[in-house]
């Protein structure tokens, strides 16, 4: 058989594997639960749908405006502190959303530090920040803007200075340059980043619980808990998937039809800001960094210092290594799969069933981890019963079930950056190399790999951090002895022990920052290139 066909078959097999858990969840509709739906419709459904849609809108706008604005400033302008602030803007990515949630409430709510201090100094009432939608939107925007920031920044760096100079010469203002030149180039990246953020918002449970903000995801859990109906929970999850599909369509539409084969790099920042303007920009960027990173980390450190003696045990070595191994394994598997898919796409046009399966497989990101995990567990058990009854395949699947969950859940995260990297390989490069006599392996190692490296590294890093922060699927599917840091954070914070939870949160953060440092080191050459 043609070697190409081996790859196609492997691809098919993997796509089917990844899609199966989602199909299992969709199959929940085969067992209708009318009474529960009737009750939901009469009471909660309209609220949860409104809340969810508003949250998506607010956070979508927020991360886009914030992420794009910040990316533009750090790539195109020179202002005081830019060098430091540029990489500091990445850091909030390592903070789990619910951690920022409980830190914010601890700091800014009625009973929190800030308002209590204000009450002692000035005679004033107080504000319940959880009222309405703005606080939860703000927190989620601050947590998820890095997706848009990272991808938009990359896109803005791949602009061509001469393009910008020509535009200025032809009379465009800086805003005009942004709107007519930079933005269209960056559109696919921005859309991809915004979509990742919104999928995270859909799947989020911890943060919205802290704010007591009922969304579709919190309804999924409460339906499961109250009505003990996994079927209805799964059915509600399919609503989530429906919204995710809608988001994907919107993203594809906003990417437009153009394909950008540019591997230009910006070699000088066009705008050197002076005076008030420069400091305004510095101020704005600093505020974001402070709110999204410095403040929560300081709070965590203060809490941690008080409780480290009480909390530290040698089990932490286990938990740290478990988090690390799972993150690394999942990153390699997901990036590997994304590379496989894109390699096949490079060689031959993907047939529509594979394309469809791929779109389907990317939906896993919007699913709450718990539902996905149960889907996988039931799937493995069903398959086990079908293939080898009574053998207890589920129990011997060990960490593989968990890795499958991570692949399904996080394929979307790896896929975007990997696909964009593959897009930088132009057919002419391949032809030129071939015509000079390069074998496939030389082509891969000397032409493809250097071009792909930044995208692969970013993809791997994003998956790794997401896996380390991941909770519900890990909680359910982990075999004995595989507790992670995120689980420790959850168990302590579920009991209200936020101070003790600060310690594993900080360790998680440190690991994330370590990964971030490694990524920036590896992709350093790809920032500004001086000709």
């Amino acid at each position, binding site marked *: 058989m043609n070697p190409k066909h081996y790859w196609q078959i492997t691809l098919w097999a993997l796509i089917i594997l990844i899609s199966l858990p989602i199909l299992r969840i969709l199959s929940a509709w085969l067992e209708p639960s009318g009474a529960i739906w009737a*009750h939901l419709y*009469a*009471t909660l459904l309209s609220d949860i749908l409104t809340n969810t849609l508003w949250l998506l809108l607010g956070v979508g706008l927020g991360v886009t405006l914030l992420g794009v604005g910040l990316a533009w400033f750090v790539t195109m302008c020179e202002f005081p502190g830019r060098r430091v602030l540029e990489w500091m803007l990445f850091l909030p990515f390592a903070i789990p959303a619910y951690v920022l949630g409980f830190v914010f409430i601890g700091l800014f*709510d*009625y*009973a929190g530090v800030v*308002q*209590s201090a204000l*009450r002692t100094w000035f005679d004033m009432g*107080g504000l*319940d920040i*959880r009222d309405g939608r703005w606080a939860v939107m703000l927190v989620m925007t601050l947590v998820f803007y890095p997706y848009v920031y990272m991808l938009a920044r990359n896109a803005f760096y791949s602009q061509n200075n001469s393009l910008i100079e020509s535009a200025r010469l032809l009379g465009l203002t800086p805003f005009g340059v942004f709107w007519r030149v930079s933005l269209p180039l960056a559109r696919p990246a921005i859309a991809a980043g915004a979509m990742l953020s919104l999928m995270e918002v859909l799947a989020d449970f911890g943060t919205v*619980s802290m704010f*007591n903000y*009922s969304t579709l995801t919190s309804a999924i859990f409460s339906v*499961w*808990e*109250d*009505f*003990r109906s996994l079927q209805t929970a799964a059915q509600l999850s399919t609503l989530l998937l429906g919204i995710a599909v809608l988001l994907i369509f919107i993203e594809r539409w906003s990417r437009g039809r153009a394909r950008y084969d540019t591997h230009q790099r910006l070699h000088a920042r066009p705008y050197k800001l002076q005076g008030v303007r420069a400091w305004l920009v510095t101020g704005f960027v600093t505020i974001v960094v402070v709110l999204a990173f410095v403040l929560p980390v300081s709070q965590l450190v203060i809490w941690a210092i008080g409780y480290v003696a009480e909390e530290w045990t040698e089990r932490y070595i286990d938990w740290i*290594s478990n988090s690390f*191994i799972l993150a690394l*394994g999942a990153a*390699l*598997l997901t990036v*590997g799969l994304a*590379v496989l898919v894109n390699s096949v796409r490079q060689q031959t046009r993907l047939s529509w069933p594979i394309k469809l399966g791929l779109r389907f497989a990317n939906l896993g990101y919007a699913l709450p981890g*718990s539902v996905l*995990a*149960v889907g996988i*567990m*039931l799937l493995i*058990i069903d398959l086990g019963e079908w293939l080898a009854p009574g053998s*207890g395949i*589920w*129990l011997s699947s*060990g*960490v593989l079930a968990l*890795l499958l969950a991570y692949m399904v859940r996080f394929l979307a995260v790896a896929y975007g950056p990997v696909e964009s990297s593959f897009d930088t390989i132009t057919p002419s490069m391949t032809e030129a190399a071939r015509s000079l006599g390069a074998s496939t*392996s030389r082509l*891969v*190692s000397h032409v*493809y*790999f250097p071009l792909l490296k930044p995208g*692969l590294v970013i993809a791997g890093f994003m998956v790794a951090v997401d896996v380390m922060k991941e909770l519900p699927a890990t*909680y*359910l599917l*982990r*075999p004995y*002895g*595989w*507790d992670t840091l995120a*689980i*420790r954070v959850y*168990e*302590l914070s579920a*009991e*209200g*022990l936020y101070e*003790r939870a600060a310690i594993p949160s900080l360790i998680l953060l440190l690991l994330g920052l370590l990964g971030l440092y490694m990524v920036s080191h590896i992709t350093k050459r790809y920032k500004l290139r001086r000709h």
Partner: protein
Amino acid sequence: MKKGLFALAISIGLIGCAEQDNNSTTTQVKQPFPNEVVVYSARAEHLIKPLFDEFTKQTGIGVKFQTGNANALVERLKAEGDQSPADILMTVDAGNLWYAASQGLFQPLNSARIASQIPAHLRDPNNLWTGLSVRARTIVYSSERVDPQQLSSYEDLGSAKWQGRLCLRTSGSVYNKSLVAAMIAHNGEQQTEQTLKNWVGNLASKPQAKDSQVLDAILAGQCDVGIVNTYYFGRMQADKPDMALKLFWANQASTGTHINVSGAGILNSAKNYDGAVKLLEWLVSDDAQGIYGALNKEYPANPKIGVDAQVDSWGRFKQDDLNLSRVGELQQQATMLINRAGYE
């Protein structure tokens, strides 16, 4: 791409080795401690590990445990069936215990000691599970702004004098659902729905996500009264002994204060029935109940056992002796009522 595949292979190898390491650690544990008991627990590790460590120290029987979400554990046990390695399911809240029993997970617990030491209303009527520690869900108030003479019952918190002064934890909390279920059992649906609507009308703020946030809100002056589990109060009091909060035992003149339990049952799939019984019997003994008290400020399920000093300082109170499995039965009804009353 070849490098990628190579790295992939290495990582899978690493994971395989790591998993074997984890397995070999358990085999190492197996040798010195025969008759290992395997527990699936919905209680977090930091609350149960001290107990299990002490049990192993005293009896030489090892305990292997895994924590998880209550519902997820039940699904997992149902799916694992007879092949499940677990001997015991330990969980919190009467509703969760009742549900696990209703799914046919437990086998009858034949222990005369437990039957004689744990009051009947804290055990399943069919001996499928037993309560291990008790917590009360009662009224907490600001000692600076509230006169305890004004307090009486849960239902009374809906009266006009508490307008804008009440803080409640979200109805999503399983403890509140059990409280409402108990109220339905005593007062019927209609009256309970009215009580809930009255509560919602008196709220000073959106319901808080956690009991600890309710306590914080009262301290900060956002509200004056609330309903919390006694152990959250106890924990805060241990940190800040001079705090201006006090507990009030609700419904002393009527049904008694609502209580709930953490409990456990032996699973049908248990491979080590004897070890499991030993563990449960130990958990209701003096030593264990002392740990429950000191560690988490809980009441012993065994009424003959002395109470932790701090917990005792809150005073004696009349417990609601409604059988907790009834609370479990009514939980779903309670949820629907909660949704209808608009209690978030």
